[in-house]
């Protein structure tokens, strides 16, 4: 019975560690998807010039980025942009993202592309930061949790 409890405890701790590390991965994925989205939108501007609504319909996405796309669509319909549901971003990130969204589609093609390039620079920095965090934090969380779990198990034994 005691051994069973210790195994369950280790399992729960590792599960929590995994969930914590996933947040860093999700943030990285979010920015990666955002970069891809903006790049594809830039290509759209130079070629097909589809309207944002049409472009969003064709955007394939999942997880946190899907929440963002859904909120973007909602903003285009209702005029209100709410990014609170995107859990992987802090308030400063959300504010920057909001600025980006609110400025897309307001200019002619040339200015729009210039603007997107400056947005892409910002997103690139964010992506690099998220990548660094992911590479540093994920293994660290897993290792520390494992150590903590083993320590706890030793104490309990």
């Amino acid at each position: 019975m005691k051994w069973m409890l210790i195994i369950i405890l280790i399992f729960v701790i590792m599960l929590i560690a995994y969930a914590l590390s996933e947040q860093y991965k999700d943030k990285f994925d979010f920015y990666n998807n955002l970069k891809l989205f903006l790049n594809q939108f830039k290509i759209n501007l130079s070629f097909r010039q589809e309207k944002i609504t049409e472009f969003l319909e064709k955007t394939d996405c999942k997880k946190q980025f899907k929440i963002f796309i859904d909120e973007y669509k909602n903003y285009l319909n209702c005029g209100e942009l709410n990014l609170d549901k995107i859990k992987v971003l802090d308030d400063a990130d959300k504010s920057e993202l909001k600025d980006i969204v609110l400025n897309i589609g307001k200019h002619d093609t040339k200015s729009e592309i210039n603007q997107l390039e400056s947005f892409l620079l910002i997103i690139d920095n964010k992506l690099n930061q998220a990548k660094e965090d992911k590479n540093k934090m994920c293994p660290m969380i897993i290792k520390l949790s494992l150590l903590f779990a083993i320590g706890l198990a030793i104490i309990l034994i």
Partner: protein
Amino acid sequence: MLKDYLPRDIYNSIIKNFSFNDITEIRMRVNEKIIIVVKNKKFYLKDDNGAYIKANNLLIDNFITKASENSIYAFNDNIVNGFITLPKGIRVGLCGSIVTDGDKIVTIKNFQAVNIRIPHFIKNCCLPAYDFMVKDNEIMNTLIISPPGSGKTTFIRDFVFQLYEHNNSKNVLIADERNEICSANSGEPAVNLGGFCDIYTNCSKKFAFKNGIRSMRPDVIVTDEIDLERDLDSIVEAINSGVNVVATIHAKNLNQLKKKPSFDKILDEKFFSRFIVLSSDEGPGTLNNIYDEKLNCIYCR
């Protein structure tokens, strides 16, 4: 349709006070009362308390943002020409400050006025003139003449449909520069034009005539609002290639048209066999006169 573009209170006032099917224009000017045009009569829009509703910069800017579906870049080619076409053929005329880069118009800013023109599809409106335009299944080169808002576009739209209804299986190429004839959205016309139409939208007449003749082998090209000086070469090229042309032009009557540059050439060379004059005398699309190539009146109202 306009529900998606106008503020709710304004839309509700319009719906409450007017029959939407009768409205032909909604005019909004900065700091002025909103005007609704119904059967050529103008009315000021009032709210529930009877107060006049005025337009302002914000209202017009928001309307244009929504009309462009938050994608100004996709509409800027039209905006620089002073219009946006909404689904269902609703035409939005724009006025404001023109932004230029050298000789090139970049965009329009500080919009001052918006004219929302709501089309009405009147089936069979061209029938009184149809037999003058088509003889033994051959379509005559026809120029339809009327001042703005007198039903030219409705007339040619119905003419194209009547060709289909009369089993005239000619290939019809529509050069729809402002997307007003077909009101195509994502490649699909919003109106029933029959099954023999190939459509170029949002492109110059020069492009549509030149490339259409080469690639689509049309029997007739239908186009709206020609500019004689700019488009005459394309029209002549089409006619000389054996393609008939049905076009519309702005003028109040034949005398006014005669004053336009290049009209002498049209008359001398007999490019057009029929001149049809429309007016708004008994509502838009009233058929006034039909003239032959020598300007003999062959139909008078």
